[in-house]
């Protein structure tokens, strides 16, 4: 401990995906001593996989498009537990953030008039749901995330941002006042463990789709930020809300974008029927993702699934023609050939709803400041801790995210967090150093793994965890399964606490990283399970067979999970946008 090297920053940003890099750019320009710390080289972050686009009312496809319509769609999509002040902020600031990306060089596809190409996505409408389908998702072919992430990385190079690449954040460090004052991190190349002290610590660690056996998420999406926050005793919000994307490639889990349906593709069952016409007569295949995913599962359960086992449906694209497919969806053509062995120019793609996105996360305000709740139920800022991107819950997605709204969330709130941190550093605040025992506390679990001498190993435990989540917390949920799941996870926690890390070497020890990630997967899984069990209603992505209706009387609320007591509380949803009237909850149909 005495020998541990210390590094000091004004702000340390944990995560080099879209959110982290956007925040970093803001701070690099400010001249504050900042670094981005990422467990993979930044362009290998999961943002690189985003395909379909970034949704924003920039008025290109339709010059009359209006951010208020985007806001309406987002509120409705959230099933009314998205915070309206935050959604308003995202939809109004959005165009600025998208144009900035373009100015930085993002190679958007274009319309004939030279403006940014926009495609229709699910849940989009004109005129507050009355004017038909909108086309609001700005795209760079079907490689928008790749284009966005590389552009942001490149502009950080231009701004001389400091990077700690292939460094792993282990746990947050708190001082005696419970302020976050830095993080314990490990250089993966050497295995050196370092105390990073920082006035602001930003979690931009992305999602945690790897808690499920079948997911569209990258292998590295293990919820490290959520794990760190929960271990530090901080709560998470709406963590039961997991989006299952309708079109994961059957068997592989790899995503094909909703943009496929935006460009005119549609889903069919084994009879060749376009079944979404029955479930969502107006929006059809472009209804909310939760609605489409449930319809697909019902088709499969009622015996109209495709294939030998009747366990998937088909996404038909061939009618769009080769030109459109190669121009607008070249990546999809490539992925389908590689992972489904079909050429979508000729045949439909086998697809099934697949875990995709974590709507919940660390509660924050629009400045990215992480929040907790005091004894009187009041929001309280956690000093020193910020969150943005998928790990955060600000909350613009509520219980169901609209396609293309995540990339917008990353750049709008990454930027907002950067700006706020700069301002608060300028204003100055008290920073109380951690004591030796504070630092020791954050080293406990790393030391536990390093000292382990026997026990079960990581890959088996991880597979078990993923299966528990897959079996008991999927598209449709019910009390008895969830109770079983919660119990199994509690047992798993005991077993993981005694698990074994055989490889104790220092340099590039990825087995150690996977062990540390397993702890985080467990934290996310257990919080998800308990919250899902306790939210006794159906809303957005959270669909319960035993409570099939939305219960606005009791649950027009955020859930908030406290790790110490493993209890679920509630937090008010914001219904007070600044410049428009409140969008009142209505029955949600498409």
């Amino acid at each position, binding site marked *: 401990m005495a020998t541990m090297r210390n590094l000091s920053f004004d702000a340390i940003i944990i995560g080099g995906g879209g959110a982290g890099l956007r925040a970093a750019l803001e701070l690099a320009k400010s001249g504050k001593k900042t670094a981005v710390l990422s467990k993979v080289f930044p362009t290998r972050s999961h943002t690189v996989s985003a395909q379909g686009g970034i949704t924003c009312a920039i008025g290109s496809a339709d010059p009359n498009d209006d951010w208020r319509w985007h806001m309406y769609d987002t509120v409705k999509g959230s099933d009314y537990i998205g915070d309206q002040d935050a959604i308003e902020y995202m939809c109004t600031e959005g165009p600025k953030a998208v*144009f900035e990306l*373009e100015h930085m060089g993002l190679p958007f596809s274009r319309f004939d008039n*030279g403006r940014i190409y926009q495609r229709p996505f699910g849940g989009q409408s004109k005129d507050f749901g009355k004017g038909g389908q909108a086309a609001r998702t700005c795209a760079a072919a079907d490689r928008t995330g790749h284009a966005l992430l590389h*552009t942001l990385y490149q502009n950080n190079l231009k701004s001389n941002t400091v990077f700690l690449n292939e460094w792993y954040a282990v746990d947050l460090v708190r001082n005696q006042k419970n302020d976050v004052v830095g993080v314990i991190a490990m250089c993966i190349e050497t295995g050196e463990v370092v105390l990073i002290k920082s006035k602001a610590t930003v979690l931009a660690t992305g999602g945690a789709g790897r808690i499920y056996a079948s997911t569209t998420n990258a292998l590295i999406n293990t919820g490290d930020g959520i794990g760190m926050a929960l271990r530090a005793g901080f709560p998470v919000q709406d963590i039961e809300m997991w989006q299952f994307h309708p079109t994961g490639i059957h068997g592989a889990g790899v995503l094909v974008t909703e943009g496929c349906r935006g460009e005119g593709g549609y889903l069919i069952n084994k009879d060749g029927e376009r079944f979404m016409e029955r479930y969502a007569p107006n929006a059809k295949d472009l209804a909310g993702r939760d609605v489409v995913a449930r319809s697909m599962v019902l088709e499969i359960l009622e015996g109209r699934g495709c294939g030998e086992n009747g366990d998937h449906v088909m996404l038909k694209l061939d009618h769009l023609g080769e030109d459109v497919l190669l121009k607008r969806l070249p990546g999809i053509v490539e992925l389908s050939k590689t992972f489904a062995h079909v050429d979508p120019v000729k045949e439909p793609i086998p697809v099934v709803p697949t875990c995709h996105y974590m709507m919940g996360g660390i509660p924050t305000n629009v400045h990215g400041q992480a929040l907790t709740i005091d004894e009187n139920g009041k929001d309280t800022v956690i000093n020193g801790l910020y969150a943005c991107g998928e790990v955060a819950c600000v909350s613009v997605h509520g219980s169901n995210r609209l396609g293309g709204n995540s990339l917008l969330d990353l750049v709008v709130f990454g930027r907002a967090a950067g700006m706020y941190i700069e301002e608060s550093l300028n204003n100055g605040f008290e920073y109380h150093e951690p004591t030796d025992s504070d630092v020791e506390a954050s080293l406990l679990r790393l030391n536990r793994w390093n000292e382990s001498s026997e026990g079960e190993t990581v*890959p088996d435990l991880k597979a078990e965890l993923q299966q528990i989540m897959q079996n008991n917390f999927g598209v449709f949920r019910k009390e008895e399964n969830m109770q079983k799941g919660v119990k199994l996870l509690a047992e798993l926690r005991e077993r993981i606490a005694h698990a074994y890390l055989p490889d104790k070497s220092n340099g590039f020890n990825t087995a150690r990283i996977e062990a540390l990630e397993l702890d985080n997967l467990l934290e996310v899984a257990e919080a998800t399970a308990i919250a899902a069990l306790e939210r006794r209603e159906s809303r957005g992505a959270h669909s319960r067979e035993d409570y099939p209706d939305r219960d606005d009387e009791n649950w027009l609320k955020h859930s908030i999970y406290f790790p110490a007591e493993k209890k679920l509380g509630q937090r008010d949803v914001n219904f007070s946008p600044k410049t428009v009237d409140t969008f009142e909850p209505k029955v949600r149909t498409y």
Partner: protein
Amino acid sequence: MSTLQVSVYRYNAETDSAPYMQDFEIDTHGRDLMVLNILQMLKAKDSTLVFRASCREGVCGSDGMNMNGKNGLACVTPLSEVVKNNKLVLRPLPGLPVMRDLVVDMALFYKQYERIQPYLQNENPAPAIERLQSPEERDKLDGLYECILCACCSTSCPSFWWNPDKFVGPAGLLWAYRFMADSRDTATRDRLAEIDDPFSVFRCRGIMNCVNVCPKGLNPTRAIGKIRELLMANAT
């Protein structure tokens, strides 16, 4: 026959005095798995085996490696594409220092990338909305911007092996041309001046190894040809 013979390059500076090849047998149950799946199965047997991976779908560039003599991405390379005589030999990308097992130190590769100033430069103030670009102008970026920085190309290029400090290499040059080809970029002249020496571009011998291995189907040789043309035109 479903037992695959896999031979993997192993080296851990902490424990090994020299690199060696380790042999495994793996039962694939006749499935046409991806090479990355095989590596994951091996790691479940021997957790000390180290490789990089993230997206597992060929878009992040983490798992470039040499498979039966050819560079590619493990996650999108099916066994049926590489395995010969039931044998699979896995080595790190050639020409870069090995950190451990299949993990190479990419610092030199990134340095060459950074050298070409891989970001849009435009001296005119930005408009209130986006800069306009016609679809035809935008088409010129196709086949360039999709690079995932996997280094499969540069580490298959003999010119890069011999002069990794001076020859920008196929990936870096592809990026250099991506910005020269962008109607929104106004720095082509400076970009060319930066690399107008006997090594940076002209070390390319047109051997096309880079084109043959690029997992994204990109063509660095063609981009290098375009840069040469621009350099020649500038010189006259």
